[in-house]
């Protein structure tokens, strides 16, 4: 299990990879090295490995990715008598799963860039690799647009996003988190990424997304979310308070903090009524269609 954690750190060195993909790759390695005798034992050790990974990086995507990986590979385990044959099949399916999800960002970008018209002004929140990929694709299609990025404290990830966009020669402005309402009358559409997509069709994302969604609803601007399908998670929060604590705070904060109510949460929940459309590798979905897709994925 220790080498899993080191593996995860290794993967993180590739900054372009989603944390969930890194987690799944780690789990696949773990599966290959596992010396268990029974299928049940294998599943248990995989579950404990996933828990361990969430202990390192407590984002929603890691837990959802882990669960989906487990489901994907275990759908075939009952057919073969021989354990080693089973394991081989599971490994193959794991590789297949990994391949599929590494293509997902490209699929999303292909779907979304058509919604960015020439001359559009886009508002986005914090640093999201999927949104970056979408904007890259739109720029490659010779579209002219300008971007407003929120600073997104406390880790100032928005600055990181602005730099990446400047490299693409896209005119970008960094705004304060508090200036979202001020800048919304100038923008045409809002695009954000998501750390997790929940059963109701709402999203869990960096803190400040809920505010942005509320303001864009008030200004009648479309609010688009781009997310890969492995981010769909079996959660159904009713309000902000209902999101489990293990997602709200960083993993190290959870371990060291004495009183969680004094800590600042790093994510918030945006209900589906504020979201116009979700772009996923399964297609362009309305928030109510997310539940349909989830039922297909998980049941």
């Amino acid at each position, binding site marked *: 299990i220790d080498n899993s954690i080191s593996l995860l750190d290794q993967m993180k060195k590739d900054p372009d990879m989603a944390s969930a993909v890194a987690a799944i790759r780690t789990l696949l390695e773990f599966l290959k090295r596992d010396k268990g005798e029974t299928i049940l034992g294998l599943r248990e050790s995989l579950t404990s490995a996933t828990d361990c990974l969430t202990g390192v990086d407590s984002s929603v995507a890691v837990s959802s990715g882990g669960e989906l990986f487990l489901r994907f590979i275990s759908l075939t385990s009952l057919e073969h008598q021989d354990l080693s044959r089973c394991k081989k099949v599971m490994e193959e399916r794991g590789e297949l799963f990994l391949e599929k999800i590494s293509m997902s960002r490209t699929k999303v970008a292909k779907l979304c860039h058509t919604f960015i018209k020439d001359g559009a002004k886009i508002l986005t929140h914090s640093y999201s690799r999927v949104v970056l990929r979408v904007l890259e694709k739109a720029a490659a299609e010779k579209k002219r647009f300008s971007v407003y990025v929120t600073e997104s404290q406390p880790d100032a990830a928005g600055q990181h996003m602005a730099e990446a966009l400047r490299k693409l020669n896209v005119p970008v402005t960094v705004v304060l988190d508090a200036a979202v309402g001020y800048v919304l009358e100038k923008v045409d559409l809002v695009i954000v990424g998501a750390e997790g997509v929940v*059963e*109701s*069709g709402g999203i869990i994302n960096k803190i400040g997304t809920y505010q942005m969604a509320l303001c864009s609803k008030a200004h009648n601007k479309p609010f688009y979310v781009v997310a890969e399908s492995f981010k769909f998670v079996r959660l*159904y929060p*009713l*309000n902000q308070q*209902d999101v*489990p604590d293990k997602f709200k705070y960083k993993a190290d904060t959870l371990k060291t903090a004495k009183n969680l109510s004094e800590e600042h949460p790093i994510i918030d929940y945006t209900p*589906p*009524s504020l979201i116009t459309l979700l772009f996923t590798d399964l297609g362009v979905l309305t928030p*109510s269609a997310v*539940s*349909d897709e989830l*039922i297909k994925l998980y*049941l």
Partner: protein
Amino acid sequence: MADSGVIDGPGRKDEIERAKSEGKDLTKEEKQRLRKEKKQQKKIKEKKDDKASQENEKEKKPVTSAAPASQPPTQPTVQKAPSAVPATAPVSVPASEASVPADKPTKTKAELKAERRARQEAERASKQTKKGETGQQAATSKPKAPPSDLQPVVKRLPEHIQVDNPDVLKKLAKKLERQQIPLRSDYGYKVSLFSHLHQYSRKAPLTQQLSIPSTVIHPAIVRLGLQYSHGIVAGSNARSVALLHAFKQVIRDYTTPQNEELSRDLVNKLKPYISFLNQCRPLSASMGNAIKYIKKEISNIPSNCKEDEAKNKLLNCIESYINEKIILAGVAIAKCAIEKQKISDGDVILVYGCSSLVNHILCKAFEKNRKFRVIVVDSRPRLEGKEALRRLVQKGISCTYVLISAVSYILPEVSKVFLGAHALLANGYVMSRVGTSQIALVAKAFNVPVLVCCETYKFCDRVQTDSFVSNELDDPDDLIVTRKGTTPLEGWENESSLGLLNLVYDVTPPDFVDLVITELGMIPCTSVPVVLRVKNVDQ
């Protein structure tokens, strides 16, 4: 102009005959033929005026009332769509008729043009209906009969929402006579919006008109019918379970007559029972689904099966249905609600009326040592909340009791609202006790999450957007209450302009409901058709 067309009817007809025989240019003849068809339609419409116009009025009303309200994205059912087609024809004709009398006083060139245009519109509309009715095999068509068959365009509407239609009543009376079941007569003045529904009085139970001994109806069913009509057995789960137990008794006492097959004869035996129960109290959606299941099971009995075996099989089927769909589903829903942290410490939960499922969930959560308190909201005339209050307080849960008029006063204290459901409709609407949609609306205004708990056997294929089309009218005398020695509403039947309305159900739109907890998991209200689809695939 449409008027004048009708008036010149017979004259025109001769002209058309002449034109036809002389072979005049087609377009003019076509126009005249269309006018003739339209006249024919009108004649047929007038013939079945008492049948169709009432329905059309009723259809028009929800159609027009749905338009200003938020229109649900789903298409209306086949039932409504074909009836909307004849509805558009009369709607366009009165529209053109309405415009014409206004134009009559000043007949300038522009007015004449407008009249001609109105006439063309009417013809186009009739052309559409004619096209639809002359067997155009379009993909969207269902019953597209020739113009003389306007009747089958409307799919069979259930009898219990067509009470003001004398033809339907006659058919029902004939059917009940055939089955030897007494017909229950309506009581009291009905409010005009609901005149298409039955309204019975509890003081005149159906059983008074039954002969003793009744050979047609099994005594267990008679007892059940009385229990329904007097409200002794109330609540959709209780009614379904009582129904299934009564059917079990019926099956135990059943013997196949000579030369008959059990699978067919038993189904025929059950039909008069179901009519009888329907007369005592209209069937609920859950009971409807249970009956469908039983009928399917009975007709699936192979013909070579011995009678005892078959009866045992059926009894086991019913037993397992009750167990799986009702009891275990309740346990699963409670587990889901508690484990997924939908009831957390410090919660203030609001419940309305008495739902067996919601009470079960709260009791289970209390057993698991969750610290919460409950606010029970109640409403007249049923005052079912008192029963819920009794059950919760017995367990030791701290409760508050308010009437529905105080709901906006206590909602700022509430953290969640738990509602039960009578049925979940295919477009995501929740049908429940009257007052539920009011509570959901106020909760939405206060941003309090609303959770509906419902087993999947209550999901039905119907679609409804308002509470008028299909509802139940309870005994209006229940609204009369004696306070301080006076009974203000005592002589209400003698007041000609006074009507008492005692509705039983209402319909809540899915935008007010945040979450539906079923035994399959937690789903948003808009995913009900997905579950129905999955269930149909399973079966």
